[in-house]
């Protein structure tokens, strides 16, 4: 399988929801070290809404599936992460437009759009100890894979590993954005919750082609 179809994307959205909900307490705990311990709750409620949406998504093109997922997250999450995760899905969907099949090239373009959307909205950059620190390396991995003509499965595996490494890197960063930045130096040693969720997203993508 070298391309993802609309139904693959629907499955990925569904699986992402399940994964996040299963990791709710863990994500809360991570957010508790740096912020206000609500990230797991917040994104899980977004994912519960996604879950309800899934049965109605089937008839749509991949771009619309992601776009609708994004607006659902924005409407149901709140907090800082709602607009950010919503933007990730919305921008990815918008980038796809009417495309019906998604290969490595499309994935790279999709997440590049998500990344720039998130940076603009959050006024953040890599190194700020946020989800960007997972999203940016994963996106770069996809872009490199696209340039090198890497196969889909391998490309997604590399993106997932890059995201995981990005999560690991957040441990040594001092947060500059969001509430976590008030922790300052005390946050060293703890990984960012939002970045962790991004890694879960890429892991779901990678697992879907295994």
């Amino acid at each position, binding site marked *: 399988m070298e391309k993802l179809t609309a139904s693959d994307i629907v499955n990925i959205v569904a699986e992402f929801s399940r994964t996040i909900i299963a990791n709710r307490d863990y994500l*809360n705990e991570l957010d*508790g070290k740096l*912020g*206000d*311990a*609500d990230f797991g*709750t*917040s994104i899980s409620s977004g994912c519960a809404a996604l879950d309800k949406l899934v049965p109605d998504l089937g008839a749509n093109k991949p771009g619309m599936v992601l776009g609708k997922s994004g607006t659902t997250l*924005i*409407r*149901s*999450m*709140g*907090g*800082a*992460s*709602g*607009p*950010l995760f919503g933007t990730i899905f919305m921008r990815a969907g918008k980038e796809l437009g009417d495309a019906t099949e998604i290969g490595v090239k499309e994935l790279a373009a999709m997440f590049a759009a998500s990344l720039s959307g998130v940076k603009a*909205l*959050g*006024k953040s950059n890599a190194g*700020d100890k946020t989800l960007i620190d997972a999203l940016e390396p994963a996106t770069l991995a996809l872009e490199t894979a696209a340039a090198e003509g890497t196969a889909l499965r391998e490309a997604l595996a590399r993106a997932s590993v890059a995201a995981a490494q990005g999560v690991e890197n957040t441990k040594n960063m001092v947060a*500059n*954005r*969001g*509430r976590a*930045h*008030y*922790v*300052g130096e*005390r946050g060293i040693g703890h990984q960012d919750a939002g970045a962790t969720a991004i890694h879960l997203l890429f892991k779901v993508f990678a697992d879907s082609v295994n």
Partner: protein
Amino acid sequence: MKKLINAPEKVVEDMLTGMVAAHPQYVRKLSGYSCLVNPQSPITNKVGIVSGGGSGHEPSHAGFIGRGMLDAACAGNVFSSPTPDHFLEAAKVVDSGAGVLMVIKNYSGDLMNSQMAEEMAEFEGVKVTRVIVDDDVAVKNSTYTTGRRGIAGTVFVHKIAGAKAAQGADLDEVKRVAEKTVANVRSMGMALTPCIVPIAGKANFELAEDEMEIGMGIHGEPGITRCKLAPADEITSTLLEKIIQDLPFGKGDEVAVLVNGLGATPLMELYVINKKIAEICAEKGIRIHRTYVGEYMTALEMAGASITLLRLDEELKALLDAPADTIAFKQF
């Protein structure tokens, strides 16, 4: 977790229901939304004032809906920003055609969600603009931060923008006085005990029996220093010094003072703090025009207090002095 609630997931809904039941003359709920609005909305020709943010700061924000202050308040989950559609719906309902000012505290969640609402409002034909409150001097502003937090000084922004709007001023004018208030208001707080977000079920930090935290935020965000508990006079001096140096406030300035309880602090202790504030201001030649003491911007059951100073000119003074009739802020 010791709370008088039914279920953590139901607490905001139950609270809003109880609030409407208690004060139907002041607030009604927008069905399908976590928003309360003035039942008289929209008020002809008046700029609408919408506030909101995470719940858990009561009486902020719905307690300030009424004549001379807010037209609507959106209530997110505890300590979590409402989503954009709540802000948008509130703006649509209170807009009389004169436009809407959103008063937003400077937290990334509130910023982003309200920004999205502002953008969406354009397509719905409502003129929305925002003012961002960032009065907390505890956290230093720098290129690497999202800037200062918004805390109790927000109440003065509500009061002054609300008074201006009540006078029939246009959106630009209302925004101007709101921004002038933000430019002249400074706050700082401290905590003796943490608070517990209902859904989390436990405090996300601990303070020893003899410790306090200076500069703690209204969501329990760490402050600038954790240290041994000190006498109230000393704590008051510490907070007030930082506030005064920041603007800076100086001899001859006229100010409004707000001594704000974070939730579990007895009013008795807030007045003990105010005693020292009055002494320090007198020493420094800072004239106190009005003082408010009570719970205005809380952090659930956190014990602690914040101090806010607002520098007044004749315009702000007149707007502050204007009558207000809301649930939690009444002034004849």
